């Protein structure tokens, strides 16, 4: 991953690749264009750490808790750096990812009807159906330089299996020029049921074994969502000082995700 890349870290509340996000912060990447339907705490961390120049999203809250304070501070106060936003609805972004995976320049939907979003997002256009004359929305395909997802299993050849809420992860990987997958487990055989969500090794650039790499989100069959962390994040991220102290101590101050998680156990840590 390089400074200025167009990057998607996907996972729809489930299997959010936090470990990969932390590594991006440790490497001090800058000027990234971040795309994600739900920025969630992972992008609040990347934005607060100054990695992002632009954010493309469709729902920007801390699920079940409230605001993403680092996102708001960047949008409203340009801290730590200005953040350009391109805002969509979920249907539009899901369609744009599918268009990217499909090798199409744009995706088609009956969307944004009567909404003000197209007034503030010039990438949303409308076209007429050549058969019925109906007005339909057109959104440009999302084609990231790099897509990163977290999955439950990979086999030794690098074929990847995920299950449960799979969001737009398959689309993100197939739409991207390069893709990285972190996994809970590496096994000899996936033993995937027929029609399971399997990404074959030849569409993936790299697979990394990072147990627990979706914490504080969850990995179905491995661990639950750490709702307490999401709630505590509200306090950590509310002020620049508390956020910076947390990132410096737990992310920049650790060498990998295992050490990050150990650091959270320490007295006074935000867990």
């Amino acid at each position, binding site marked *: 991953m390089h400074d200025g890349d167009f990057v998607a870290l996907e996972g*729809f*509340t*489930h299997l959010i690749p936090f470990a990969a996000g932390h590594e991006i912060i440790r490497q001090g990447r800058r000027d990234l264009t971040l795309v994600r*339907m*739900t920025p969630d705490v992972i992008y609040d961390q990347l934005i607060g750490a100054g990695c992002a120049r632009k954010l493309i*999203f*469709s*729902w*920007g*809250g801390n*699920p*079940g*808790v409230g*605001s993403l304070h680092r*996102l*708001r501070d960047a*949008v*409203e106060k340009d801290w730590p750096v200005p953040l350009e936003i391109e*805002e*969509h*609805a*979920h*249907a539009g972004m*899901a*369609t744009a*990812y*599918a268009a990217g995976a499909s090798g199409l320049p744009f995706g088609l*939907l*009956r*969307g*944004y*009807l*009567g*909404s*003000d*979003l197209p007034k*503030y997002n010039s990438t949303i256009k409308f076209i007429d159906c050549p058969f019925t004359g*109906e*007005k339909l929305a057109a959104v440009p395909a999302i084609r990231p330089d790099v897509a990163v997802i977290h999955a439950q299993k990979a086999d030794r050849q690098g074929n990847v299996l995920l299950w*449960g*809420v*799979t*969001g*737009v992860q*398959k*689309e993100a990987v197939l739409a991207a020029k390069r893709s990285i997958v972190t996994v809970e487990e590496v096994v000899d055989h996936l033993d995937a049921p027929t029609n399971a*969500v399997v990404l074959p090794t030849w569409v993936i650039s790299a697979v990394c074994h990072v147990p627990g790499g979706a914490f504080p989100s*969850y990995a*179905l069959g491995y*661990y*639950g*969502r*750490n*709702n*307490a962390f*999401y709630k505590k994040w509200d306090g950590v991220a509310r002020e620049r000082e508390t956020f910076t102290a947390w990132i410096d101590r737990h992310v920049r101050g650790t060498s990998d995700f295992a050490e990050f998680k150990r650091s959270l156990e320490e007295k006074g840590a935000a867990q």
Partner: protein
Amino acid sequence: MAEQAYTADEMMTIAAARMVRNGAALFVGIGLPSAAANLARLTHAPDVVLIYESGTIGTKPKVLPLSIGDGELAETADAVVSVPEMFAYWLQGGRIDLGFLGAAQIDRFANINTTVIGDYHKPSTRLPGAGGAPEIAASCKEVLITLRQNKRAFVNTLDFVTSAGHLDGGDSRAKLRFPGKGPVAVITDLGILTPDPVSRELTLTSVHPGVTADAVVAATGWALKVAPTLTTTAPPTDQELAVLRDLQARTARAHAGQA
């Protein structure tokens, strides 16, 4: 039946739950709608099909999800599909009977704002944004909206139209060829508002027990119309209250620590 003390929020959730027809396919937003939808499922509507935008169809969570994609939703679902499939085949495909939304701001035609308070570029409050709401509001056969009623929420003019209700009223929604009929009721902590059959303007048709029409009008940022035949919402039954409180207690316990 014996009545017992209850809060305005409980009355709101219970009144909203009663609007859910048993057997309906229900597209559920997180928060108040999710609580009402699950209360309906646990009381009079055991066969309601709960659908969350995370791709979970026919889910039966034991506790209320904190996020729209909690594991509980996937583990108890009849089917789990990708998010693009959910929005394309299930929502846009016209398969959903009822959409259930919350809102930060609403206007007299039940258009809603979940994006910003104030100017879009320099907002006084930046809200989470659209999520699935614009297409839920457009494509479900009918839409229910539930939120607390006060002048900050019930405004004369929205700062931002995130999702369309009845637009400028009258036939303005039909003119744009929306697939769905739009909002059929707004359930608040004070009463129930329904759109006028012709003008589509929200009209107060029921007040909750102990609430006056004047109080509801005073909590509304426009000159709220009141139906000539104003009814009073039936108070919560013991069973409704017991099931709701039990659900919320289970939920609080589950979300306290590592779920």
